[in-house]
């Protein structure tokens, strides 16, 4: 292993910059002569727009321009799209509503975009936006997932009868699954909610649209997780500018969690308007705007049933879900509750038959899309809650019930009944290790101790699996995805021997600048500090698909390795020439090309110099040492593990304290264990947030977001969590060159089920939904006696 190569817990290279305020976020970017945008947003959840009068606003100080949906339509700016086609059970295509960048005629949620007001200063733009008079005809609203498709519910979109986008199932196997249930010795059934979450990245979304007159080209500086995809969408679908006349830059980005995958109205309007007014246009969301305009996550209502035989082996599962899409379809909103969700319902178990159906509905709420975990937390929550409940009903130890049903290490590759074929894993190993670390054996005594102190103690398991490293392009295409999900990399030796690596992924908290540099240092034998990772600018480096779905190391990292292999192959040719040896006799280790069996060697830096100053050079070989690679993964990767949560409940107040949290994860090869630990910590805290504190609350009548600020929306804080006990097991993925699986989402996927299983254990009732707020817990404790 090279020093600070793969496996080293190197401190993150980017942290000094980010922590000392030297980062460059979109809001730090200012263009000469820039103007500022403010958006007129709908105060109503559902209304027709009868007229918009901007006369007074246009006359306000500093106002440069005001544009509405009609102005953008006149310029033929295309509608916002959903990039994944899903068909209903009857084969009919999904009902995708027409979604204009700025509303035309109708608004469908509080915060929906009505007009863009551009002025010399931000405050002038905000002042003027308040003067735009919009005459709304208010309509009644529907916000609840369960009742959105009820008869008589207010209708959002003409092309979506009963507010239904699609009524889908994974496979037409209901009859078979029903038959398995009919023969079951035991059936456990749960009705559960998966609460709606507001992403709340630390950095709000922001955009600077910039028009360059001399080249008639546009640049968008934006808070994006995938600048190349943003350029593609802005160009091919919205028609803002052709791709070669459009540059998208996503500089330092302060967290995304999925919410910065999509191309939103605000960024699009700023970019379009920059050309209109021939001035740069800047917009930075304030927190209140973020609450209503960043795509939310989750929001499912589910009935899940598990059928078991007399030996408590899982026979079959049925899962019926209604998922809330919000007011319109966001970019990947159709894939998240379907192929990102139902395909994970097998979990770590050998359940032979699974029927999964999902109906998606429109409501007068902020659009919903991928949020850390995206579909997989929902699947894990449904599955692990019902497994734990079954164990309780059958009076079997929950660890034992799981163990009895785990896929065994010798069964890989394992084909599940829900599309995926798992590559590798050892689920029992994680379970055993977690049980030991959590001192499961000592739990009963701890429970008694708590009881003596007037507290209720509970313990809960979550054996999760996730499909990461998204994704093989052909598989994605076959399931309706509109894009390929390969990744690209370019590894460039500079003449003086240091290395610039370009990746199509994007880091917004994940530490790629460090982890990717470690991969390169390890492979090419250069010091890690001599490797610079560049991302986030479509004018630098190759087209890439961006960062989400824990894909960056598995797909992006693999592309880097492939490019590195080309560097070594070319370097070998050059070294052979310089060392006057046959190419086959050249070995490459630790950065040195050596003639086998001799001490004749050249360092890769010397070879790079020779490639750029090719005075003595092999015939037929191009100068330079700069290679690119595209990597399309062979399969998803399947991180897995066991999380165990232990809680103590104060029955007097309903307060839940997490007293112990153990996570044993299998992420395959670890590139940087410290970064992995950080990702696990953050993920668990987000999962704890979902379980205990978070949840967007809409007023059922007015459709207003009731908790649209941090005064009411409860983000998890340091005092909501204990110091975690985390560990790993390692089954390297055989399907990618690094053996990695991805670790970014695991905590958020596993934690909600672990926490809720602990709470339901403590309370002795399954009847409590997330977030388990003190009042809910207190009431459940009262009801359970």
């Amino acid at each position: 292993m090279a020093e600070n190569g793969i496996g080293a817990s190197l401190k993150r290279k980017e942290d000094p910059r980010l922590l000392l305020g030297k980062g460059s976020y979109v809001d730090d970017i200012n263009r000469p002569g820039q103007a500022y945008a403010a958006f007129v947003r709908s105060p109503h959840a559902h209304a027709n727009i009868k007229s918009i009068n901007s006369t007074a606003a246009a006359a306000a100080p500093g106002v440069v321009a005001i544009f509405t949906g009609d102005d953008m339509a006149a310029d033929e700016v295309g509608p916002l799209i959903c990039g994944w086609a899903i068909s209903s059970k009857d084969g009919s295509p999904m009902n995708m509503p027409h979604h204009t960048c700025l509303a035309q005629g109708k608004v469908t949620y509080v915060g929906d975009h009505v007009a863009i007001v551009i002025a010399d200063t931000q405050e002038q733009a905000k002042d003027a936006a308040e003067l735009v008079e919009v005459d709304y005809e208010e309509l009644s609203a529907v916000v609840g997932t369960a009742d959105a498709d009820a008869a008589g519910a207010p209708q959002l979109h003409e092309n979506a009868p009963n507010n239904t986008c699609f009524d889908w199932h994974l496979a037409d196997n209901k009859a078979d699954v029903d038959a398995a249930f009919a023969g079951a010795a035991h059936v456990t059934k749960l009705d559960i909610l998966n609460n709606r979450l507001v992403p709340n990245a630390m950095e709000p979304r922001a955009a600077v649209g910039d028009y360059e007159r001399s080249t008639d080209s546009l640049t968008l500086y934006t808070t994006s997780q995938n600048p190349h995809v943003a350029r593609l969408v802005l160009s091919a679908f919205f028609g803002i500018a052709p791709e070669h006349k459009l540059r998208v830059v996503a500089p330092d980005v302060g967290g995304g969690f999925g919410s910065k995958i999509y191309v939103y109205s605000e960024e699009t309007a700023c970019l379009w308007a920059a050309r209109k007014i021939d001035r740069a246009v800047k917009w930075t969301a304030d927190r209140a705007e973020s609450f209503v305009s960043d795509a939310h996550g989750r929001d499912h209502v589910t009935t899940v049933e598990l059928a078991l035989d007399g030996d408590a082996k899982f026979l079959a599962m049925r899962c019926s879900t209604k998922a809330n899409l919000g007011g319109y379809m966001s970019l990947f909103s159709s894939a998240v509750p379907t192929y990102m969700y139902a395909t994970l319902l097998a979990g770590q178990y050998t359940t032979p038959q699974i029927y999964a159906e999902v109906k998606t509905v429109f409501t007068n709420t902020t659009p919903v899309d991928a949020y850390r975990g995206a579909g997989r937390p929902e699947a894990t929550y449904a599955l692990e809650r019902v497994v734990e409940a079954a164990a309780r009903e059958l009076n079997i130890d929950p660890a034992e019930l799981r163990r009895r049903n785990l896929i065994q290490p010798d069964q890989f590759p394992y084909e599940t009944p829900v599309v995926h074929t798992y590559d590798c894993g050892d689920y029992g190993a994680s379970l055993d290790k977690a049980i030991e670390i959590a001192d499961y054996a000592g739990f009963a005594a701890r429970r008694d101790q708590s009881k003596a102190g007037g507290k209720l103690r509970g313990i809960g398991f979550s054996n999760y699996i996730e499909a990461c490293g998204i994704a093989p392009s052909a598989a994605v295409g076959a399931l309706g995805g509109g894009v390929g999900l390969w990744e690209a990399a370019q590894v460039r030796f500079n003449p003086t021997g240091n290395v610039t690596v370009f990746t199509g992924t994007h880091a917004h908290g994940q530490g790629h600048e460090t982890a990717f540099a470690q991969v390169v240092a390890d492979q090419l034998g250069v010091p890690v500090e001599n490797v610079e990772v560049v991302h986030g600018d479509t004018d630098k480096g190759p087209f890439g698909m961006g960062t989400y779905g824990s894909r960056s190391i598995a797909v992006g990292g693999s592309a880097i390795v492939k490019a590195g292999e080309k560097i070594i192959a070319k370097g070998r040719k050059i070294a052979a020439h310089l060392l006057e040896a046959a190419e086959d006799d050249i070995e490459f280790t630790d950065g040195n090309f050596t003639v086998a069996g001799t001490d004749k060697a050249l360092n890769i830096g010397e070879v790079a110099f020779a490639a750029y100053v090719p005075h003595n050079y092999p015939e037929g070989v191009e100068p330079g040492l700069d290679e690119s690679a595209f990597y399309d993964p062979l399969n998803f990767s399947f991180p897995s593990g066991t999380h165990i949560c232990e809680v103590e409940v104060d029955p007097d107040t309903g307060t839940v304290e997490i007293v112990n949290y153990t996570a044993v994860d299998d992420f395959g090869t670890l590139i940087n264990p410290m970064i992995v630990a950080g990702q696990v910590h953050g993920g668990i805290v987000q999962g704890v947030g979902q379980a205990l504190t978070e949840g967007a609350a809409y007023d059922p009548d007015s459709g207003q977001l009731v908790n649209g600020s941090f005064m009411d929306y409860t983000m998890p804080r340091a005092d909501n969590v204990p110091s975690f006990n985390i560990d790993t097991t390692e089954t390297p993925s055989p399907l990618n060159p690094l053996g990695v699986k991805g670790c970014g989402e695991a905590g958020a996927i596993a934690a909600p089920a672990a926490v809720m299983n602990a709470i339901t254990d403590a309370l002795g009732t399954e009847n409590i939904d997330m977030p388990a707020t003190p009042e809910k817990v207190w009431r459940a404790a009262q009801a359970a006696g």
Partner: protein
Amino acid sequence: MYNFNYQRASSLDDAVAKLGAASDGTLLAGGQTLIPTLKQRLASHSDVIDLSGIGDLRGISADGGGVTVGALTRHAEVAASADVPAALAALADGIGDPQVRNCGTLGGSIANADPAADYPAAVLGLGATVNTNLRSIAADDFFTGLFETALNDGEIITSVTFPTPQKAGYAKFPNPASRYAMVGVFAAQMGDGVRVAVTGAGPCVFRVAEMESALAGNWSADAVAGISVSADGLNSDLHGSAEYRAHLVTVMAKRAVAAAG
């Protein structure tokens, strides 16, 4: 925020004059409530008159029967003071976060009279006196409703005088999001009787007479365990229904008495 004139007062008289001259002026103390309100465009004022330069309004001085805390005294200063009753210091230490405690002031907090603020519980629970540029107001008369006080237009709080309790304790059930008090109970045994004040639960801080008389006879957590307040008229929101808040009043009262020792 909307535009306003910023003015810095050099003395109490100067502040009174500037406030009187402004068409729609307001005072700025620690800014922990006012500034967020302005930034969110929830309020607009012609003038904002900054009190922070008036040194006379800041500081803690103990005298015979109690302690007087200047209106501009920061929460962190009260939290760190050995001169104030321990329960008051502990209460101040539980307000917001370090930034808030190092900016926010006693005067600003009680002038604002947020139904979920902590200080009103101590002011009422200790039977303090609120001193202004014009008069002294007994705590029982000071808090009059939701964000309402006995202060007249243009009246400025200068200090609060707290009598010394024999025993006092404060227990707070924080709102999980804002960490203000969802229910906070201040219980104190004073020379002239027991006082129990509840913040967070209702639209305005209030006393619980039944608990006070029970504690007068028997100063113990058990004495209040069986006493519950009616949920009628209590606050009800996403975080807690009126019924739950009523239940918490009893639980927090027990804990406040236990904390007092």
